[in-house]
Protein backbone atom coordinates (compact mmCIF):
# COMPACT_ATOMS: atom_id res chain seq x y z
CA UNK A 1 0.00 0.00 0.00
CA UNK A 2 1.39 3.37 -0.98
CA UNK A 3 1.59 6.13 1.58
CA UNK A 4 -0.32 8.43 -0.77
CA UNK A 5 -3.68 6.67 -0.71
CA UNK A 6 -3.36 5.56 2.90
CA UNK A 7 -6.06 5.91 5.51
CA UNK A 8 -4.83 9.19 7.03
CA UNK A 9 -7.80 9.37 9.41
CA UNK A 10 -5.91 6.89 11.63
CA UNK A 11 -3.51 9.71 12.39
CA UNK A 12 -6.23 12.21 13.34
CA UNK A 13 -5.29 12.41 17.05
CA UNK A 14 -1.64 13.13 16.26
CA UNK A 15 -2.48 15.70 13.59
CA UNK A 16 -4.95 17.48 15.87
CA UNK A 17 -2.52 17.50 18.79
CA UNK A 18 0.22 18.86 16.53
CA UNK A 19 -2.04 21.69 15.33
CA UNK A 20 -3.15 22.48 18.89
CA UNK A 21 0.46 22.45 20.12
CA UNK A 22 1.46 24.81 17.32
CA UNK A 23 -1.52 27.06 18.13
CA UNK A 24 -0.48 27.24 21.79
CA UNK A 25 3.12 27.90 20.73
CA UNK A 26 1.98 30.67 18.37
CA UNK A 27 -0.43 32.17 20.91
CA UNK A 28 2.47 32.39 23.34
CA UNK A 29 4.73 34.50 21.16
CA UNK A 30 1.90 36.57 19.70
CA UNK A 31 0.61 37.69 23.11
CA UNK A 32 3.65 39.60 24.28
CA UNK A 33 6.72 38.90 26.35
CA UNK A 34 4.97 38.15 29.64
CA UNK A 35 5.96 34.88 31.27
CA UNK A 36 2.78 34.39 33.24
CA UNK A 37 0.10 33.03 30.91
CA UNK A 38 -2.09 30.62 32.90
CA UNK A 39 -4.69 30.41 30.11
CA UNK A 40 -2.16 28.43 28.03
CA UNK A 41 -2.06 25.79 30.76
CA UNK A 42 -5.84 25.39 30.74
CA UNK A 43 -5.77 25.29 26.93
CA UNK A 44 -3.09 22.56 27.04
CA UNK A 45 -5.16 20.37 29.36
CA UNK A 46 -8.20 20.84 27.09
CA UNK A 47 -6.08 19.90 24.04
CA UNK A 48 -4.87 16.73 25.74
CA UNK A 49 -8.36 15.70 26.83
CA UNK A 50 -9.71 16.39 23.33
CA UNK A 51 -6.91 14.28 21.85
CA UNK A 52 -7.71 11.48 24.31
CA UNK A 53 -11.30 11.45 23.03
CA UNK A 54 -10.02 11.41 19.44
CA UNK A 55 -7.75 8.45 20.24
CA UNK A 56 -10.72 6.59 21.69
CA UNK A 57 -12.76 7.34 18.55
CA UNK A 58 -10.24 7.05 15.71
CA UNK A 59 -7.93 4.36 17.08
CA UNK A 60 -10.69 1.91 17.93
CA UNK A 61 -10.13 -0.01 14.70
CA UNK A 62 -6.68 -1.24 13.74
CA UNK A 63 -4.87 -0.20 10.61
CA UNK A 64 -1.64 1.18 9.28
CA UNK A 65 -0.27 3.91 7.07
CA UNK A 66 2.30 2.59 4.62
CA UNK A 67 4.28 0.29 7.00
CA UNK A 68 5.40 3.34 8.97
CA UNK A 69 2.59 4.12 11.35
CA UNK A 70 0.38 1.50 12.91
CA UNK A 71 -2.74 1.74 15.04
CA UNK A 72 -3.61 -1.24 17.22
CA UNK A 73 -4.79 -2.06 20.73
CA UNK A 74 -1.33 -1.51 22.18
CA UNK A 75 -0.96 1.91 20.57
CA UNK A 76 -4.46 2.98 21.65
CA UNK A 77 -4.08 1.99 25.32
CA UNK A 78 -0.62 3.48 25.69
CA UNK A 79 -1.65 6.71 23.95
CA UNK A 80 -4.54 7.15 26.37
CA UNK A 81 -2.22 6.45 29.31
CA UNK A 82 0.34 8.95 27.99
CA UNK A 83 -2.21 11.68 27.25
CA UNK A 84 -3.89 11.43 30.64
CA UNK A 85 -0.47 11.31 32.29
CA UNK A 86 0.60 14.54 30.60
CA UNK A 87 -2.74 16.16 31.50
CA UNK A 88 -1.97 15.33 35.15
CA UNK A 89 1.58 16.66 34.79
CA UNK A 90 0.22 19.94 33.40
CA UNK A 91 -2.27 20.21 36.27
CA UNK A 92 0.63 19.86 38.73
CA UNK A 93 2.67 22.33 36.67
CA UNK A 94 -0.08 24.97 36.94
CA UNK A 95 0.52 25.06 40.69
CA UNK A 96 4.29 24.99 40.20
CA UNK A 97 4.55 27.82 37.66
CA UNK A 98 2.25 29.90 39.84
CA UNK A 99 4.97 29.84 42.49
CA UNK A 100 7.85 30.21 40.02
CA UNK A 101 7.10 33.29 38.00
CA UNK A 102 10.42 33.07 36.16
CA UNK A 103 9.16 30.13 34.09
CA UNK A 104 8.14 31.01 30.53
CA UNK A 105 4.80 29.23 30.66
CA UNK A 106 4.04 29.28 26.94
CA UNK A 107 7.33 27.58 26.10
CA UNK A 108 6.90 25.15 28.97
CA UNK A 109 3.44 23.97 27.93
CA UNK A 110 4.20 23.79 24.22
CA UNK A 111 7.36 21.74 24.90
CA UNK A 112 5.28 19.35 27.00
CA UNK A 113 2.78 18.99 24.16
CA UNK A 114 5.51 18.37 21.58
CA UNK A 115 7.01 15.75 23.88
CA UNK A 116 3.58 14.11 24.12
CA UNK A 117 3.34 14.08 20.35
CA UNK A 118 6.71 12.35 20.17
CA UNK A 119 5.59 9.76 22.71
CA UNK A 120 2.39 9.08 20.75
CA UNK A 121 4.37 8.66 17.55
CA UNK A 122 6.76 6.27 19.31
CA UNK A 123 4.12 3.85 20.55
CA UNK A 124 2.41 3.91 17.15
CA UNK A 125 5.44 3.28 14.98
CA UNK A 126 5.90 0.15 12.91
CA UNK A 127 9.24 1.20 11.53
CA UNK A 128 12.63 1.95 13.06
CA UNK A 129 12.79 5.40 11.47
CA UNK A 130 9.38 6.59 12.68
CA UNK A 131 10.25 5.19 16.06
CA UNK A 132 13.51 7.09 16.24
CA UNK A 133 11.95 10.37 15.11
CA UNK A 134 9.30 10.04 17.82
CA UNK A 135 11.93 9.14 20.40
CA UNK A 136 14.02 12.19 19.57
CA UNK A 137 11.03 14.53 19.62
CA UNK A 138 10.26 13.28 23.12
CA UNK A 139 13.88 13.29 24.29
CA UNK A 140 14.88 16.73 22.98
CA UNK A 141 11.78 18.34 24.48
CA UNK A 142 12.55 16.57 27.76
CA UNK A 143 16.16 17.85 27.75
CA UNK A 144 14.87 21.42 27.47
CA UNK A 145 12.25 20.84 30.17
CA UNK A 146 14.82 19.43 32.62
CA UNK A 147 16.73 22.72 32.50
CA UNK A 148 13.74 24.99 32.84
CA UNK A 149 14.91 26.61 36.08
CA UNK A 150 17.47 28.62 34.11
CA UNK A 151 19.18 30.35 37.03
CA UNK A 152 19.34 27.25 39.22
CA UNK A 153 22.66 25.40 39.11
CA UNK A 154 21.17 21.97 39.81
CA UNK A 155 18.57 22.30 37.08
CA UNK A 156 21.23 23.31 34.55
CA UNK A 157 23.44 20.44 35.69
CA UNK A 158 20.50 18.06 35.26
CA UNK A 159 19.83 19.32 31.75
CA UNK A 160 23.47 19.02 30.67
CA UNK A 161 23.85 15.54 32.13
CA UNK A 162 20.58 14.49 30.54
CA UNK A 163 21.41 15.84 27.09
CA UNK A 164 24.94 14.36 27.02
CA UNK A 165 23.97 10.94 28.34
CA UNK A 166 20.70 10.90 26.40
CA UNK A 167 22.53 11.74 23.20
CA UNK A 168 24.94 8.87 23.86
CA UNK A 169 22.02 6.52 24.43
CA UNK A 170 20.40 7.64 21.17
CA UNK A 171 23.69 6.97 19.40
CA UNK A 172 23.72 3.44 20.82
CA UNK A 173 20.16 2.85 19.63
CA UNK A 174 21.00 4.13 16.16
CA UNK A 175 24.16 2.04 15.97
CA UNK A 176 22.23 -1.10 16.89
CA UNK A 177 19.51 -0.20 14.38
CA UNK A 178 22.12 0.31 11.67
CA UNK A 179 23.40 -3.23 12.22
CA UNK A 180 19.86 -4.56 11.97
CA UNK A 181 19.26 -2.56 8.81
CA UNK A 182 22.57 -3.63 7.34
CA UNK A 183 21.77 -7.30 7.87
CA UNK A 184 18.08 -7.33 7.01
CA UNK A 185 17.96 -4.54 4.45
CA UNK A 186 14.72 -3.17 5.90
CA UNK A 187 13.56 -0.86 8.67
CA UNK A 188 10.04 -2.25 8.86
CA UNK A 189 9.58 -4.19 12.11
CA UNK A 190 7.35 -6.84 10.54
CA UNK A 191 9.91 -7.54 7.79
CA UNK A 192 12.72 -7.59 10.33
CA UNK A 193 10.82 -10.20 12.32
CA UNK A 194 10.67 -12.44 9.24
CA UNK A 195 14.35 -12.01 8.42
CA UNK A 196 16.01 -12.42 11.83
CA UNK A 197 15.70 -16.21 12.48
CA UNK A 198 18.00 -17.16 9.61
CA UNK A 199 20.31 -14.24 10.39
CA UNK A 200 20.60 -15.41 13.98
CA UNK A 201 21.52 -18.87 12.74
CA UNK A 202 24.15 -17.51 10.32
CA UNK A 203 25.58 -14.54 12.22
CA UNK A 204 24.77 -14.98 15.91
CA UNK A 205 27.47 -12.62 17.21
CA UNK A 206 26.62 -9.63 15.05
CA UNK A 207 22.90 -10.01 15.73
CA UNK A 208 23.49 -10.32 19.47
CA UNK A 209 25.68 -7.24 19.36
CA UNK A 210 22.98 -5.30 17.48
CA UNK A 211 20.40 -6.31 20.06
CA UNK A 212 22.72 -5.47 22.94
CA UNK A 213 23.33 -1.99 21.52
CA UNK A 214 19.60 -1.35 21.27
CA UNK A 215 18.96 -2.71 24.76
CA UNK A 216 21.66 -0.42 26.15
CA UNK A 217 20.07 2.62 24.49
CA UNK A 218 16.50 1.74 25.40
CA UNK A 219 17.66 0.74 28.89
CA UNK A 220 18.86 4.30 29.37
CA UNK A 221 15.51 5.74 28.37
CA UNK A 222 13.60 3.53 30.82
CA UNK A 223 16.40 3.85 33.46
CA UNK A 224 17.29 0.21 33.89
CA UNK A 225 20.42 -0.77 35.87
CA UNK A 226 23.28 -0.43 34.73
CA UNK A 227 22.09 2.45 32.55
CA UNK A 228 20.30 4.33 35.35
CA UNK A 229 23.04 6.64 36.62
CA UNK A 230 21.48 9.75 35.11
CA UNK A 231 18.11 9.28 36.80
CA UNK A 232 18.77 10.47 40.37
CA UNK A 233 20.66 13.62 39.36
CA UNK A 234 18.23 14.59 36.61
CA UNK A 235 15.19 13.84 38.77
CA UNK A 236 16.61 15.91 41.60
CA UNK A 237 17.65 18.90 39.50
CA UNK A 238 14.67 19.15 37.17
CA UNK A 239 11.56 21.11 38.24
CA UNK A 240 9.35 18.65 40.16
CA UNK A 241 6.49 18.53 37.59
CA UNK A 242 9.10 17.74 34.92
CA UNK A 243 10.43 14.99 37.18
CA UNK A 244 6.94 13.52 37.26
CA UNK A 245 6.81 13.77 33.46
CA UNK A 246 10.13 11.94 33.13
CA UNK A 247 9.21 9.25 35.59
CA UNK A 248 5.68 8.64 34.28
CA UNK A 249 5.29 9.58 30.62
CA UNK A 250 8.84 9.24 29.39
CA UNK A 251 9.24 5.86 31.08
CA UNK A 252 5.93 4.44 29.85
CA UNK A 253 6.66 5.61 26.31
CA UNK A 254 10.13 4.06 26.59
CA UNK A 255 8.56 0.77 27.57
CA UNK A 256 6.22 1.24 24.63
CA UNK A 257 9.11 1.13 22.16
CA UNK A 258 10.91 -1.67 23.96
CA UNK A 259 7.78 -3.79 23.65
CA UNK A 260 7.10 -2.67 20.08
CA UNK A 261 10.63 -3.37 18.87
CA UNK A 262 11.15 -6.64 20.69
CA UNK A 263 7.68 -8.15 20.51
CA UNK A 264 7.03 -7.12 16.89
CA UNK A 265 10.53 -6.84 15.40
CA UNK A 266 12.32 -9.67 17.23
CA UNK A 267 9.45 -11.87 18.39
CA UNK A 268 10.60 -14.78 16.24
CA UNK A 269 13.92 -14.99 18.11
CA UNK A 270 12.46 -14.56 21.60
CA UNK A 271 14.79 -17.14 23.15
CA UNK A 272 17.86 -15.22 22.01
CA UNK A 273 17.10 -12.05 23.97
CA UNK A 274 14.72 -13.04 26.76
CA UNK A 275 17.53 -14.00 29.09
CA UNK A 276 19.25 -10.61 28.71
CA UNK A 277 16.04 -8.97 29.90
CA UNK A 278 15.74 -11.47 32.77
CA UNK A 279 19.22 -10.51 33.99
CA UNK A 280 18.53 -6.80 33.57
CA UNK A 281 15.25 -7.14 35.47
CA UNK A 282 16.99 -8.97 38.31
CA UNK A 283 19.85 -6.48 38.81
CA UNK A 284 17.48 -3.53 38.30
CA UNK A 285 15.16 -4.74 41.07
CA UNK A 286 18.06 -5.48 43.42
CA UNK A 287 20.15 -2.34 42.84
CA UNK A 288 17.18 0.06 42.57
CA UNK A 289 15.62 -1.06 45.83
CA UNK A 290 18.90 -1.33 47.73
CA UNK A 291 20.14 2.15 46.82
CA UNK A 292 16.73 3.69 47.49
CA UNK A 293 17.09 2.75 51.17
CA UNK A 294 19.97 5.15 51.79
CA UNK A 295 18.40 8.15 50.01
CA UNK A 296 17.65 11.18 52.15
CA UNK A 297 16.02 13.32 49.46
CA UNK A 298 12.53 12.50 48.33
CA UNK A 299 13.13 13.11 44.61
CA UNK A 300 16.23 10.91 44.60
CA UNK A 301 14.27 8.28 46.47
CA UNK A 302 11.54 8.42 43.84
CA UNK A 303 14.21 8.13 41.13
CA UNK A 304 15.49 4.85 42.58
CA UNK A 305 11.94 3.73 43.26
CA UNK A 306 11.29 4.37 39.56
CA UNK A 307 14.35 2.32 38.65
CA UNK A 308 13.02 -0.55 40.76
CA UNK A 309 9.56 -0.24 39.16
CA UNK A 310 11.20 -0.48 35.72
CA UNK A 311 12.72 -3.74 36.94
CA UNK A 312 9.27 -5.14 37.85
CA UNK A 313 7.99 -4.08 34.43
CA UNK A 314 10.83 -5.96 32.72
CA UNK A 315 9.95 -9.25 34.44
CA UNK A 316 6.98 -10.07 32.15
CA UNK A 317 9.10 -9.13 29.11
CA UNK A 318 11.54 -11.87 30.12
CA UNK A 319 8.92 -14.44 31.16
CA UNK A 320 6.51 -14.62 28.23
CA UNK A 321 4.18 -17.59 28.08
CA UNK A 322 1.66 -16.08 25.69
CA UNK A 323 2.05 -12.68 24.06
CA UNK A 324 -1.46 -11.51 24.99
CA UNK A 325 -0.98 -12.36 28.65
CA UNK A 326 2.38 -10.60 28.80
CA UNK A 327 1.02 -7.50 27.12
CA UNK A 328 -1.97 -7.31 29.39
CA UNK A 329 0.25 -7.74 32.49
CA UNK A 330 2.62 -4.99 31.43
CA UNK A 331 -0.14 -2.63 30.40
CA UNK A 332 -2.05 -3.20 33.62
CA UNK A 333 1.06 -2.41 35.60
CA UNK A 334 1.70 0.64 33.41
CA UNK A 335 -1.80 1.96 34.21
CA UNK A 336 -1.27 1.30 37.93
CA UNK A 337 2.18 2.90 37.73
CA UNK A 338 0.73 6.01 36.06
CA UNK A 339 -1.91 6.44 38.76
CA UNK A 340 0.26 5.85 41.81
CA UNK A 341 3.35 7.71 40.60
CA UNK A 342 1.43 10.71 39.33
CA UNK A 343 -0.54 10.96 42.57
CA UNK A 344 2.62 10.64 44.63
CA UNK A 345 4.40 13.29 42.57
CA UNK A 346 1.46 15.70 42.89
CA UNK A 347 1.83 15.49 46.68
CA UNK A 348 5.64 15.61 46.52
CA UNK A 349 5.47 18.76 44.38
CA UNK A 350 3.12 20.43 46.83
CA UNK A 351 5.07 19.45 49.94
CA UNK A 352 8.57 20.20 48.64
CA UNK A 353 7.42 23.53 47.20
CA UNK A 354 5.62 24.50 50.40
CA UNK A 355 8.54 23.65 52.68
CA UNK A 356 11.13 24.70 50.06
CA UNK A 357 13.08 21.60 50.98
CA UNK A 358 13.34 18.27 49.17
CA UNK A 359 14.66 16.21 52.08
CA UNK A 360 12.50 13.36 53.39
CA UNK A 361 11.97 15.38 56.57
CA UNK A 362 9.89 17.89 54.59
CA UNK A 363 7.08 15.34 55.00
CA UNK A 364 7.25 15.48 58.79
CA UNK A 365 3.87 15.95 60.39
CA UNK A 366 1.97 15.97 57.11
CA UNK A 367 -0.88 14.10 58.78
CA UNK A 368 -1.42 17.04 61.11
CA UNK A 369 -0.96 19.64 58.38
CA UNK A 370 -3.10 18.01 55.67
CA UNK A 371 -4.70 14.70 56.70
CA UNK A 372 -6.23 14.00 53.28
CA UNK A 373 -2.87 14.33 51.52
CA UNK A 374 -1.18 12.14 54.11
CA UNK A 375 -3.75 9.37 53.68
CA UNK A 376 -3.66 9.66 49.87
CA UNK A 377 0.15 9.52 49.92
CA UNK A 378 -0.05 6.43 52.12
CA UNK A 379 -2.28 4.70 49.57
CA UNK A 380 0.09 5.61 46.72
CA UNK A 381 3.09 4.36 48.66
CA UNK A 382 1.29 1.13 49.58
CA UNK A 383 0.48 0.71 45.89
CA UNK A 384 4.11 1.33 44.89
CA UNK A 385 5.22 -1.17 47.52
CA UNK A 386 2.60 -3.65 46.26
CA UNK A 387 0.28 -4.13 49.22
CA UNK A 388 -3.36 -5.25 48.75
CA UNK A 389 -6.47 -3.29 47.83
CA UNK A 390 -4.36 -1.16 45.49
CA UNK A 391 -3.80 -1.37 41.74
CA UNK A 392 -0.06 -1.79 42.35
CA UNK A 393 -0.70 -4.99 44.28
CA UNK A 394 -2.64 -6.63 41.45
CA UNK A 395 -0.14 -5.42 38.87
CA UNK A 396 2.69 -7.00 40.80
CA UNK A 397 0.65 -10.11 41.59
CA UNK A 398 -0.07 -10.78 37.89
CA UNK A 399 3.59 -10.30 37.02
CA UNK A 400 4.60 -12.65 39.86
CA UNK A 401 2.15 -15.35 38.74
CA UNK A 402 3.34 -14.90 35.15
CA UNK A 403 6.95 -15.44 36.20
CA UNK A 404 5.98 -18.65 38.02
CA UNK A 405 4.00 -19.89 35.01
CA UNK A 406 7.08 -19.37 32.86
CA UNK A 407 9.05 -21.41 35.42
CA UNK A 408 11.38 -18.51 36.14
CA UNK A 409 11.24 -19.12 39.85
CA UNK A 410 14.48 -17.31 40.66
CA UNK A 411 13.15 -14.10 39.10
CA UNK A 412 9.89 -14.39 41.04
CA UNK A 413 11.83 -14.90 44.27
CA UNK A 414 14.02 -11.84 43.61
CA UNK A 415 10.87 -9.84 42.90
CA UNK A 416 9.29 -10.82 46.24
CA UNK A 417 12.43 -10.18 48.28
CA UNK A 418 13.17 -6.81 46.70
CA UNK A 419 9.53 -5.80 47.20
CA UNK A 420 9.94 -6.52 50.90
CA UNK A 421 13.08 -4.35 50.89
CA UNK A 422 11.07 -1.57 49.26
CA UNK A 423 8.62 -1.49 52.19
CA UNK A 424 11.48 -0.13 54.25
CA UNK A 425 11.99 3.11 52.33
CA UNK A 426 8.33 3.66 51.48
CA UNK A 427 7.51 3.30 55.18
CA UNK A 428 10.27 5.83 55.87
CA UNK A 429 8.10 8.50 54.22
CA UNK A 430 5.03 7.28 56.14
CA UNK A 431 6.97 7.47 59.40
CA UNK A 432 7.71 11.13 58.67
CA UNK A 433 4.07 11.86 57.86
CA UNK A 434 2.42 10.19 60.83
CA UNK A 435 4.96 9.86 63.63
CA UNK A 436 6.82 13.18 63.48
CA UNK A 437 5.57 16.60 64.49
CA UNK A 438 5.42 19.38 61.90
CA UNK A 439 8.47 21.61 61.82
CA UNK A 440 7.89 24.83 63.74
CA UNK A 441 8.60 27.04 60.73
CA UNK A 442 5.95 25.43 58.49
CA UNK A 443 2.31 26.47 58.41
CA UNK A 444 0.20 24.27 60.64
CA UNK A 445 -2.32 23.62 57.87
CA UNK A 446 -1.24 23.10 54.28
CA UNK A 447 -3.70 24.55 51.80
CA UNK A 448 -4.17 22.34 48.76
CA UNK A 449 -4.63 24.15 45.43
CA UNK A 450 -7.41 22.87 43.17
CA UNK A 451 -5.43 21.36 40.26
CA UNK A 452 -3.21 19.37 42.64
CA UNK A 453 -6.14 18.09 44.68
CA UNK A 454 -7.90 17.08 41.44
CA UNK A 455 -4.87 15.02 40.34
CA UNK A 456 -4.56 13.46 43.80
CA UNK A 457 -8.26 12.57 43.97
CA UNK A 458 -8.42 11.07 40.47
CA UNK A 459 -5.24 9.05 41.06
CA UNK A 460 -6.54 7.90 44.44
CA UNK A 461 -9.88 6.78 43.01
CA UNK A 462 -8.05 4.99 40.18
CA UNK A 463 -5.51 3.32 42.46
CA UNK A 464 -8.16 1.97 44.84
CA UNK A 465 -10.72 1.39 42.04
CA UNK A 466 -8.43 -0.78 39.92
CA UNK A 467 -7.30 -2.45 43.14
CA UNK A 468 -10.84 -3.54 43.97
CA UNK A 469 -12.06 -4.08 40.40
CA UNK A 470 -8.86 -5.20 38.73
CA UNK A 471 -10.70 -7.72 36.58
CA UNK A 472 -12.62 -4.95 34.76
CA UNK A 473 -9.37 -3.75 33.24
CA UNK A 474 -7.80 -7.18 32.75
CA UNK A 475 -10.94 -8.50 31.02
CA UNK A 476 -10.81 -5.56 28.64
CA UNK A 477 -7.09 -6.09 28.00
CA UNK A 478 -7.52 -9.83 27.47
CA UNK A 479 -9.92 -9.21 24.58
CA UNK A 480 -7.74 -6.59 22.93
CA UNK A 481 -5.89 -7.18 19.70
CA UNK A 482 -2.47 -5.95 20.85
CA UNK A 483 -0.42 -5.87 17.66
CA UNK A 484 -1.61 -5.26 14.14
Amino acid sequence: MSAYNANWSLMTPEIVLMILALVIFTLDFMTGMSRNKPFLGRLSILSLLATTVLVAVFNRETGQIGDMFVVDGFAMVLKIVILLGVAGVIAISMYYVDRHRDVYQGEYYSLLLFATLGAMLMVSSADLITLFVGLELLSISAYCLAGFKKYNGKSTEAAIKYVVLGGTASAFILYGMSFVYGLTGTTSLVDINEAVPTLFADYPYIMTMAIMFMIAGFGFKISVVPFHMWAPDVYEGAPTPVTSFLSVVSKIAGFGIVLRVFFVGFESVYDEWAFIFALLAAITMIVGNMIAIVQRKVKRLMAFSGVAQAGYLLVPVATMVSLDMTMSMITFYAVAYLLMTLGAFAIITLVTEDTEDDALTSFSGLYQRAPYLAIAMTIFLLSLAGLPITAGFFGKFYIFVGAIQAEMLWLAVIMIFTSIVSFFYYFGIMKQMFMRDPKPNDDQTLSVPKPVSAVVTISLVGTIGFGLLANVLTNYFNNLQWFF
Partner: protein
Amino acid sequence: MELDLYFSNYTYVIIFVLFGVALPVVSLTFGRLLRPKNPYDDKLSTYESGIKPTGEAQIRFHVAYYIVAIEFIIFDIETVFLYPWAVSLGQLGWVGLNAMLIFILILALGLGYSWKKRVLEWN
Protein backbone atom coordinates in the same frame (compact mmCIF):
# COMPACT_ATOMS: atom_id res chain seq x y z
CA MET B 1 25.68 -15.24 0.11
CA GLU B 2 24.32 -11.73 0.24
CA LEU B 3 26.03 -11.06 3.51
CA ASP B 4 29.50 -11.85 2.16
CA LEU B 5 28.84 -9.10 -0.36
CA TYR B 6 27.89 -6.86 2.54
CA PHE B 7 31.27 -7.41 4.17
CA SER B 8 33.30 -7.44 0.96
CA ASN B 9 31.96 -3.95 0.27
CA TYR B 10 34.11 -2.83 3.18
CA THR B 11 37.23 -3.83 1.21
CA TYR B 12 37.01 -0.48 -0.57
CA VAL B 13 36.80 1.31 2.75
CA ILE B 14 39.89 -0.50 4.02
CA ILE B 15 41.82 0.29 0.83
CA PHE B 16 40.73 3.92 1.11
CA VAL B 17 41.87 4.14 4.74
CA LEU B 18 45.23 2.55 3.92
CA PHE B 19 45.81 4.99 1.05
CA GLY B 20 44.66 7.91 3.16
CA VAL B 21 47.21 7.06 5.86
CA ALA B 22 50.00 6.09 3.45
CA LEU B 23 49.84 9.21 1.28
CA PRO B 24 50.88 11.87 3.83
CA VAL B 25 53.27 9.52 5.63
CA VAL B 26 55.12 8.53 2.47
CA SER B 27 55.22 11.97 0.88
CA LEU B 28 56.36 13.74 4.07
CA THR B 29 59.01 11.12 4.76
CA PHE B 30 60.41 11.39 1.24
CA GLY B 31 60.30 15.17 1.43
CA ARG B 32 62.26 15.11 4.65
CA LEU B 33 64.94 12.90 3.10
CA LEU B 34 65.26 14.98 -0.09
CA ARG B 35 64.99 18.64 1.08
CA PRO B 36 67.80 20.70 2.62
CA LYS B 37 67.11 21.72 6.25
CA ASN B 38 67.90 25.40 6.95
CA PRO B 39 65.27 27.17 9.10
CA TYR B 40 65.69 30.90 10.01
CA ASP B 41 63.31 33.47 11.51
CA ASP B 42 61.93 35.00 8.31
CA LYS B 43 61.25 31.59 6.85
CA LEU B 44 59.27 30.48 9.90
CA SER B 45 57.11 33.62 10.11
CA THR B 46 53.57 33.81 8.76
CA TYR B 47 53.36 34.86 5.12
CA GLU B 48 50.89 35.39 2.28
CA SER B 49 47.33 35.28 3.71
CA GLY B 50 48.33 34.84 7.36
CA ILE B 51 48.70 37.43 10.14
CA LYS B 52 50.43 37.19 13.50
CA PRO B 53 47.95 35.92 16.10
CA THR B 54 47.11 38.20 19.03
CA GLY B 55 45.50 37.15 22.34
CA GLU B 56 44.15 33.78 23.40
CA ALA B 57 42.20 31.49 21.11
CA GLN B 58 39.98 30.23 23.93
CA ILE B 59 37.87 33.28 24.69
CA ARG B 60 34.16 33.48 25.52
CA PHE B 61 32.06 34.05 22.45
CA HIS B 62 28.96 36.16 22.67
CA VAL B 63 25.99 33.86 23.23
CA ALA B 64 24.20 35.41 20.26
CA TYR B 65 26.63 33.59 17.97
CA TYR B 66 25.21 30.26 19.10
CA ILE B 67 21.61 31.33 18.63
CA VAL B 68 22.33 32.65 15.17
CA ALA B 69 24.23 29.44 14.39
CA ILE B 70 21.21 27.36 15.42
CA GLU B 71 18.90 29.53 13.31
CA PHE B 72 21.31 29.15 10.40
CA ILE B 73 21.46 25.36 10.68
CA ILE B 74 17.66 25.04 10.71
CA PHE B 75 17.28 26.96 7.48
CA ASP B 76 20.36 25.34 5.99
CA ILE B 77 18.76 21.94 6.51
CA GLU B 78 15.53 23.26 5.05
CA THR B 79 17.46 24.08 1.87
CA VAL B 80 18.96 20.59 1.84
CA PHE B 81 15.45 19.16 1.96
CA LEU B 82 14.09 21.58 -0.62
CA TYR B 83 16.52 20.67 -3.42
CA PRO B 84 15.68 16.96 -3.82
CA TRP B 85 12.04 17.79 -3.19
CA ALA B 86 12.02 20.39 -5.97
CA VAL B 87 13.70 17.98 -8.40
CA SER B 88 11.19 15.21 -7.80
CA LEU B 89 8.09 17.34 -7.31
CA GLY B 90 6.68 16.01 -10.58
CA GLN B 91 6.35 12.51 -9.15
CA LEU B 92 5.40 13.59 -5.63
CA GLY B 93 2.39 15.60 -6.78
CA TRP B 94 -0.01 17.31 -4.41
CA VAL B 95 0.89 15.11 -1.44
CA GLY B 96 4.52 16.16 -1.73
CA LEU B 97 3.58 19.81 -2.10
CA ASN B 98 1.35 19.72 0.99
CA ALA B 99 3.96 17.87 3.04
CA MET B 100 6.61 20.47 2.25
CA LEU B 101 4.21 23.36 2.88
CA ILE B 102 3.47 21.95 6.36
CA PHE B 103 7.21 21.57 7.00
CA ILE B 104 7.91 25.15 5.91
CA LEU B 105 4.95 26.43 7.94
CA ILE B 106 6.35 24.84 11.12
CA LEU B 107 9.78 26.36 10.41
CA ALA B 108 8.15 29.74 9.71
CA LEU B 109 6.42 29.58 13.09
CA GLY B 110 9.82 28.93 14.64
CA LEU B 111 11.23 31.96 12.84
CA GLY B 112 8.27 34.07 14.00
CA TYR B 113 8.93 32.89 17.54
CA SER B 114 12.59 33.88 17.48
CA TRP B 115 11.66 37.20 15.86
CA LYS B 116 9.11 38.03 18.55
CA LYS B 117 11.46 36.87 21.30
CA ARG B 118 14.10 39.28 19.92
CA VAL B 119 16.58 36.54 19.15
CA LEU B 120 17.52 38.28 15.91
CA GLU B 121 18.49 41.54 17.66
CA TRP B 122 22.10 41.87 18.66
CA ASN B 123 21.91 44.18 21.68
